């Protein structure tokens, strides 16, 4: 019984919605005298006048708007004096219609807005303010007023306001409100159009808004509306899914970039000398610290260039870590090539030393980095995926490093020497390649690349004396997986490990990701013990 009645009611309502003429039809030319007369009329007339005012704010000509704007305010403030000949605006003593100075005749009556009419006038006033007020603060306040009653906002008002708006933040808010308003509009066709427009920019917020419409009465009553809502929901969900997938890929790519940067130096050194440099993590850390020192230096000497410290630090970080690497090679590792396991211990000693040295000199706290404009913010792409510049920086940096390293190894005499010594040290020595020098320079190169890795990750990760430890084991795994001393192997392995980590993390957590990656690597080694891109050497 009750159900039937409410169904009937709903049907009636829907019918009324469909049949009702467009409530705020474009006022071709404003009947100014009629409007003023209505303003002075009874509550019903005043209501109509309020609606006309709002419609004018939305669609009226510029003159009409300029003319009508004071009326809404005056009605709210009861500064409108009605008399026999019409009405007078008390402020300035102007005739309400002609805007020529005149005094009121007799005792003017200031009409009182009814409880129902008041919001209509407030809305109209805000509408005028949003489009006309020169002060952004006033426009923002007007927008707040409009937000309270999205259903009453005249259709084209917000679009026009957005077009003219000069403040970017405000403009975005207006757009958002426009969508909400359109979604809640009385005209079903407008609502459906609005639904379509919201679905064009899928995000979790858009999804909440659209899915809220599934509880709207119109969803049950109007099949067209329902179809639109369902289609939009599906579209937004797809968009979100794509966005999430892209975001995962993007995060994976940026993590892979860092891994690659950390591992490429290791891989070159390992391929060349069979030495795993356990101090590579600390060289990364030193790269980050050098970057910080460059920043501090610029702050003191040339504050104007502060924003460019990340770029200016590139050669410094590379050279400092490369010099440390060369010193290490010459003093320590040179004596250990025939004893790779001992070189593990030796490089660990170096790692311990460097970490504690930095701890003593700089303390254990995280360093503070400026965020230059080119690594700030990002571009929203689809769904909730934002193409952030700090990650892009790391990716681009890694790509550039990859290109340069590749060119260096493949296209220069030094690279040729590295490859020769990697493949057959004795033969290389026989044909006159100075293998010791090559070792030293290559160690410098590998260490310098670690320094660059430190620079690249300083905008993303926290920088402290222990930071090297966080990457180094993943970097080892990249080298193991990629195979000895191949750039291609390092790239593929870094991408694989980076992506798998990022894929698993949201499902089972970071620890599980590490466990699974390790197990996968061990399993993989069953199949290819030499890694992905092994250069098979021969026994004896």
């Amino acid at each position, binding site marked *: 019984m009750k159900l039937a009645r409410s169904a009937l009611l709903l049907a009636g309502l829907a019918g009324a919605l469909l049949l009702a003429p467009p409530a705020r039809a474009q006022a071709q030319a404003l009947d100014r005298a009629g409007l003023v007369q209505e303003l002075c009329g009874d509550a019903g007339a005043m209501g109509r006048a309020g609606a006309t005012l709002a419609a004018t704010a939305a669609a009226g000509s510029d003159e009409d708007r300029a003319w009508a704007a004071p009326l809404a305010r005056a009605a709210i403030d009861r500064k409108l004096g009605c008399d026999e000949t019409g009405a007078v605006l008390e402020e300035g003593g102007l005739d309400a219609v002609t805007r020529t100075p005149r005094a009121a005749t007799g005792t003017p009556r200031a009409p009182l807005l009814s409880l129902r009419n008041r919001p209509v006038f407030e809305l109209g006033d805000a509408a005028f303010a949003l489009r006309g007020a020169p002060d952004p603060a006033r426009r923002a306040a007007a927008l707040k007023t409009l937000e309270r009653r999205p259903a009453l906002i005249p259709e084209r008002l917000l679009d026009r306001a957005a077009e003219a708006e000069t403040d970017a933040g405000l403009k975005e808010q207006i757009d958002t409100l426009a969508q909400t308003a359109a979604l809640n509009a009385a005209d079903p066709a407008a609502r459906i159009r609005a639904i379509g427009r919201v679905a064009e920019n899928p995000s979790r917020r858009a999804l909440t808004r659209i899915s809220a419409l599934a509880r709207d009465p119109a969803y049950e009553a109007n099949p067209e509306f329902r179809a639109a809502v369902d289609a939009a929901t599906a579209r937004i969900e797809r968009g979100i899914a794509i966005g999430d997938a892209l975001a995962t890929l993007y995060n994976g790519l940026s993590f892979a970039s860092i891994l690659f940067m950390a591992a490429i130096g290791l891989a070159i050194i390992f391929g060349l000398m069979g030495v795993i440099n356990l101090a590579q993590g600390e060289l990364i850390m030193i790269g980050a610290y050098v970057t910080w020192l460059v920043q501090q230096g610029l702050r003191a000497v040339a504050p104007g260039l502060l924003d460019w410290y990340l770029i200016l630090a590139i050669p410094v970080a590379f050279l400092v870590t490369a010099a440390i690497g060369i010193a290490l090679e010459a003093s320590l590792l040179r004596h250990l090539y025939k004893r790779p396991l001992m070189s*593990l211990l030796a490089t660990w000693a170096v790692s311990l030393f460097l970490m504690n040295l930095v701890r003593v000199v700089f303390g254990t706290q995280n360093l503070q980095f400026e965020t230059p404009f080119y690594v700030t913010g990002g571009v929203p792409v689809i769904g909730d995926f934002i193409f952030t510049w700090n990650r892009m920086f790391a990716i681009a940096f890694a790509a550039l490093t990859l290109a340069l390293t590749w060119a260096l190894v493949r296209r220069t005499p030094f690279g040729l020497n590295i490859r020769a010594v990697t493949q057959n040290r004795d033969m290389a020595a026989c044909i006159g390649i100075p293998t010791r020098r090559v070792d030293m320079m290559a160690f410098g190169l590998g260490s310098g690349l670690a320094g660059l890795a430190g620079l690249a990750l300083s905008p993303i990760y926290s920088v402290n004396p222990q930071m090297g430890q966080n990457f180094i084991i993943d970097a080892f795994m990249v080298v193991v997986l990629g195979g000895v001393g191949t750039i291609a192997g390092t790239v593929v392995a870094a991408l694989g490990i980076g992506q798998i980590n990022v894929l698993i993390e949201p499902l089972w957590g970071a620890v599980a990701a590490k466990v699974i990656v390790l197990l996968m690597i061990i399993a993989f080694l069953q199949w290819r013990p030499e890694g992905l891109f092994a250069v098979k050497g021969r026994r004896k």
Partner: protein
Amino acid sequence: MSRIGPTSPIVLLIGLIILVAMAMAGLAGTEFALSRYLANAIGQLAAFAVLAISLDLIWGYLGILSLGHGLFFALGGYLMAMYLLKHSFEITATVPDFLQFMGWKDFPFYWAGFEFFPYALAVAVVVTLLVSGIFGYVSFRSRVGGVYFAIITQALVYVAMLLMFRNDTGFGGNNGMTGFTVLFGWPMGTSGMITALAVASLLVLAWVLLGCRWLVGSRFGALMLATRDDETRLRTMGYETLRLKLIVWCLSALIAMLAGMLYVPQVGIINPRVLSPELSLEIAVWVAIGGRGHLVGAVIGALLVNAVKFWLSSAAPEIWPFILSGLIVLVVLVFPNGLMDIAKFKFVRPMGAKRLAADLGESRP
């Protein structure tokens, strides 16, 4: 097969260890008894020496460097801690901190039975054999060795550490397990208990030394050295080196586990930090400093490094890392066979350091 005379270092060392153990046991309770601190330190050092032997067995004699031996040490330690907590709970009914911390009413189901020491010991043995057996099998089967093996074991112990840092595993998480009050029905923390634990550790050390000496002196030991020097050669002589390596690897893991079981009741706590890659690397440093491939060297290395560390960690903890790294560099560059070099340089083989290193037969991967 090889004979050992009564004055060979290993006999002297075992004799000394047993002598100290007997003296400690005999003097307990008298005015000549060692201070609790010293007795406890001796006990811990003995546990570390056992741990060093376990690594020397595979590194020095088999040429396989594990940078993850802390894993097995921690396994023994954690399972011992489980026994201690459960046992203490049975007697004193105090609920361990970590259960309260997690808001759990009762022990997780896998703690069942841990109040019985034989069960705890059996679980420790089985789990150690399983972990070392599976990991060893897959690694050795695919012929992963050298530096590869070293860094994969390091990753293994690192991942285990991350796992144990989680609080929801039921093993104490971040804070680990502590608050042991009773061992085999006796209250812990008394001088008697401290001395007893130290003596037990010393005796286990003597026993492990003896057993390992027998092993490396046997034909099997010769095959271990042969595997270290040239595994392919040995395989083409008809020996399944995979089996041999697996046996020694698992044995080594068991010894490390044993060390962990001795260690935990003496320090009174276990937490994930024993799984940090640094500790596992440090074990390798003890062995390197003492001299790889010499059981006596491993023991002396462990004792020496840890004694200095004990002393410094109260006197000047911040300079310890610098001293340790300096020691490593010194050993690696100047005394590739650790303390054994110092002895050999003088008395036995006046050879260059390089030649000695070559003799130890580490080859490029």
